């Protein structure tokens, strides 16, 4: 450093990459020692006589510092090796490894292949696990992920297309869930008990409409707000709904939540062991797995409807107006677009899909309480949309599979106990790994998995618009 500032020094030969990496790694290790040393090296515990003693863990701190050293060394080496080329980013280089033809096949073939996989997944699981473990795989992985895919596709309309940052999306999920729970447990038994088996199918549209209505209610006061202010108010709205559900016990039964919510029927045929149940009607042996498989196909259809509708809307004037709103609101108004209505439709339609998902969630769980609708849920859904690349359906689906599937998978990593000892519970590290993965992905692909935008109309050839031009919107 001194040589660069002091003209009297002759400039030394540039250090070799290895020496340079070693130096940077040494610095990183020293910093790591300073930061982690006091935290990790000493621990206070109680000894046999109940006295507080300091336990030293020099071994642990040595491992951490060595890991930092090695990591930084390899990183530095990797980057100095690449620097002279000044080539494209890591991601572009990786995808550049694939020949063009293969990339085209992946691009055009992926959605149909994913669709087929989606439909055969339960059968495959069933035949692989022989029925016993299937429930977990279809429910925790299939249904759970698909609920988030659907929620993210719904939020994508508001955030990705219209560019309105909504941090309270979970409110509409809650509205949908409580709409189904309350109508199915209170209203229908009191009015038309005969419709009990149809409850889910009646309530699904009602829940969607109610959620859309709440979307408009939220939309009105926040229409004048933009960016950060909009985000804060939507966050507050989500919290208000949750607090009302907690405190208005006469209405929502507070923290206790609502239980014994009727489960969906197979278009009027209930899933139970009775003579008129699903298994008996179709001559099968009774098993709870049929209901799970049915729920799986219901959420597949709901998610596909969400995708289809939002894809369709994007190509209609209203969808173009959403995207134009994200790009430049003032220009929209100068072209005669009613921006108030345009924003409200985005809120309403996004909320409607949230409501559908909510009522499905209530039907699948059979029990709901305000715990399920915390801000954390909104944050996860938003994270999926951002990671997927705002506005892209496929990117969002990939992100949902990676995030939700990934965290579920961590529950399965029991073999890690063999390495880290019996106290080690990988599920406890879910959020840590989740956070690290998000940071890594955002460094690798700052605009999400699929950052390009497909035009909605073309004159000669349809070409993707690169992320450099597409704006993110500021409410």
């Amino acid at each position, binding site marked *: 450093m001194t040589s660069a500032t002091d003209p009297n020094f002759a400039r030394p030969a540039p250090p070799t990459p290895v020496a340079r990496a070693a130096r940077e790694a040494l610095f990183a290790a020293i910093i790591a020692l300073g930061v982690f040393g006091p935290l990790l090296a000493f621990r206070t515990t109680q000894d046999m006589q109940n006295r507080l003693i300091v336990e030293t863990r020099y071994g642990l701190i040595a491992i951490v510092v060595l890991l930092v050293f090695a990591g930084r060394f390899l990183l530095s080496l990797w980057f100095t090796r690449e620097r002279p080329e000044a080539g494209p980013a890591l991601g572009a280089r990786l995808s550049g490894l694939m020949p063009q033809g293969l990339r085209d096949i992946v691009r055009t073939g992926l959605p149909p292949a994913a669709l087929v996989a989606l439909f055969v997944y339960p059968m495959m699981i069933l035949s692989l696990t022989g029925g016993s473990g299937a429930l977990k795989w279809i429910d925790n992985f299939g249904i759970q992920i698909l609920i988030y895919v659907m929620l993210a596709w719904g939020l994508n309309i508001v955030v990705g297309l219209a560019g309105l940052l909504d941090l309270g999306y979970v409110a509409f999920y809650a509205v949908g869930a409580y709409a189904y729970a309350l109508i199915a447990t209170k209203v229908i038994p009191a009015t038309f008990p005969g419709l009990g088996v149809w409850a889910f199918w009646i309530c699904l549209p009602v829940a969607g409409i109610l959620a859309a209505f709440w979307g408009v209610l939220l939309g009105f006061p926040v229409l004048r707000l933009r960016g950060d202010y909009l985000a804060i108010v939507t966050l507050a709205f989500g919290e208000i709904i949750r607090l009302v559900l907690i405190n208005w016990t006469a209405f929502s039964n507070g923290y206790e939540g609502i239980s014994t919510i009727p489960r969906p029927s197979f278009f009027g045929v209930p899933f139970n062991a009775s003579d008129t149940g699903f298994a008996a009607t179709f001559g099968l042996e009774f098993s709870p797995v049929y209901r799970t498989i049915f729920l799986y196909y219901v959420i597949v259809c709901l998610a596909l409807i969400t995708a289809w509708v939002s894809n369709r809307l994007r190509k*209609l004037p209203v969808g173009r107006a959403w995207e134009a709103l994200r790009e430049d609101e003032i220009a929209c108004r100068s072209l005669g677009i009613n921006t108030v209505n345009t924003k409200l439709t985005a809120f309403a339609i996004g909320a409607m899909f949230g409501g559908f998902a909510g009522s499905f969630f209530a039907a699948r769980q059979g029990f709901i309480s305000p715990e399920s609708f915390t801000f954390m849920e909104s944050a996860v859904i938003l994270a999926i949309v951002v990671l997927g690349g705002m506005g892209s359906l496929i990117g969002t689906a990939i992100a949902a599979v990676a995030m939700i599937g990934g965290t579920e998978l961590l529950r399965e990593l029991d073999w890690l106990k063999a390495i880290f000892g019996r106290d080690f519970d990988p599920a406890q590290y879910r959020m840590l790994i989740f956070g690290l993965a998000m940071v890594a992905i955002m460094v690798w692909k700052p605009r999400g998995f699929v950052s390009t935008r497909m035009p909605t109309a073309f004159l000669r050839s349809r070409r993707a618009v690169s992320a450099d031009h597409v704006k993110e919107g500021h409410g």
Partner: protein
Amino acid sequence: MSEAILTVEHLTMRFGGLLAVNDLSFEARRGDITAVIGPNGAGKTTVFNCITGFYKPTQGRITMRHADGRTHLLERLADFRIAQEAKVARTFQNIRLFSGMTVLENLLVAQHNPLMSASGWSIGGILGLPAYGRAERRAIEKAAYWLDKCGLTDRADDPAGDLPYGPQRALEIARAMCTEPELLCLDEPAAGLNPRESLVLNDLLRFIRKEHGTSLLLIEHDMSVVMEISDHVVVLDYGIKISDGTPPEVREDPKVIAAYLGVDDSEVEKVEAEVGL
């Protein structure tokens, strides 16, 4: 002489203590190219923002008179209704394109209102009714027509943000024309264009007036551009109208010369002699 399409009466716009436009009255006649000129900060953009509804004037009345005799009081209309119902379109001094959308999409967004009703407020569109498909094809044809006029056909499927500056200005004009306005307001359309691009722009503006019967109101701070194509010039300085007339009249007006050269009225004679007028 044709009737007035736009009448501005006693327009005043105050920002706190700053009087940006002060008791301005002028008329723009149907079929004319009317120019509003004046030095930087004279209040020209503010006048446009009042006409197109982006600012609510402190005082004054702005009347838009359509060919069929209907009138709109623009100071009472919301900004989007001014484009939708009063048929006044505008461009911006700092270009405002939808840069992440393609050139063609920009022109389709401009046809939002007719397309919206053709899509049955999206319901028919979602169901895929043929009426919407036809409407969209017509919209694309219209966009293609304007792309052809602006020489942008080859760039139709490129993102608007990718275009060079001159074509971006042209695209913004084409986009405004896609709303089928009766009055088109252009805020410094020639700013930042090279002389060749300026000539092309003048041709485009003349074409718009001649073939589409659209009246034009344009802001310019460079006098030379305006003198060539406008029929009528209004000169603003510090929010006050200092001159109003045909280009030769305005050019001769000592007040205008003083405003542009920044000298007192009494010194105008001397300055004129120096610059050879």
